[in-house]
């Protein structure tokens, strides 16, 4: 289990030639799968800024390791537009239920580091177990689920 706040800003190093390819700028969520799909890397050469999550070899305390620089990909047009529109700038967004009730301002995301599956959303005072994302967009994060009775953070 890891957190958005622990991954963001981490440098990305290659195992094959110890090259630093950049740093993690943001995480790309797949709302339908309820999982982290990729890390968006800044400081890379050219347009290959996407590191698919399944290509992450290990997450250390000081770096995210990938096999080689060839594992980074170019984002497609739609993804590039969504990144620019701020869909994946997650912290500070209001989390709403699909019933229109606010659960708080998103502070952090807990997810399984192997599968990328999002487990809990952190809002002030609470860690909300995620049932399902309805949508992750430029203005809000919408979820279904136990919103009406948030569990206190452990």
């Amino acid at each position, binding site marked *: 289990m890891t957190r958005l706040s622990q991954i963001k800003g981490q440098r990305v190093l290659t195992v094959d030639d110890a090259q630093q390819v950049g740093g993690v700028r943001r995480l790309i969520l797949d709302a339908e799968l309820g999982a982290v799909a990729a890390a968006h890397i800044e400081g890379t050469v050219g347009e290959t800024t996407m590191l698919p999550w399944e290509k992450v070899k290990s997450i250390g305390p000081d770096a995210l390791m990938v096999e080689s620089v060839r594992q980074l990909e170019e984002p497609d047009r739609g993804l590039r537009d969504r990144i620019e529109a701020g869909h994946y700038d997650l912290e500070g967004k209001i989390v709403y239920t699909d019933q229109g009730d606010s659960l708080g301002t998103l502070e952090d995301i807990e997810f399984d580091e192997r599968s990328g599956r999002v487990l809990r959303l952190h809002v002030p005072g609470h860690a909300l177990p995620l049932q399902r994302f*309805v949508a992750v967009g430029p203005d809000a994060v919408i979820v279904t689920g136990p919103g009406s009775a948030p569990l206190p953070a452990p």
Partner: protein
Amino acid sequence: MNSIDSGGGRITRASELIGRPIIALDSATQVAEVKDVVVDTQSAQAIGFTLRGRGLLAGPAPGFLPLEAVHAIGRDAVMVASRDAIGDPDDARSARPAEEEDLIGKEAVSVTGSSLGTVSDVILEIDGPSAAVVGYEIAAQNGNLVIVRAPESAPLSPDALVVPDEIALGAASGLASFRGSLERTQS
């Protein structure tokens, strides 16, 4: 927050809905915010929202959102399936009702002819995507605010809202006591 949960729905002032974001469920985008609530006094239902863009620098009002296109009216936002819920303002379905009148500021007069004051707010019972008019808040001349139950029929004209005497006499002093009086009449 000035809303109270009761058994059926949530009792709230219509003015509390003003400024609430309207969010599309498919894209998590804020498409507008509530400018005003349009109610039909005949059916005693809210029928939709007039809209404004986000913030003070927003462009012209982006139209009307009919209540049947609303997914849910929440405590913090109004949810719609997608941006398409907000019709073209020229579209018949999203046209604002022609006979719409501003309730706020209208004089409330009892059947026996005493002025109760002016309507200062409309009290709604919100249940998912529906919002029934259950009361009116009235500002009396002495400055006191009272809430009266929405009568079965509330004759309304450009001149006044007419309220039956027994309802005027049963006015509540706030949302909490109004809710209590609603529950007593329902049981």
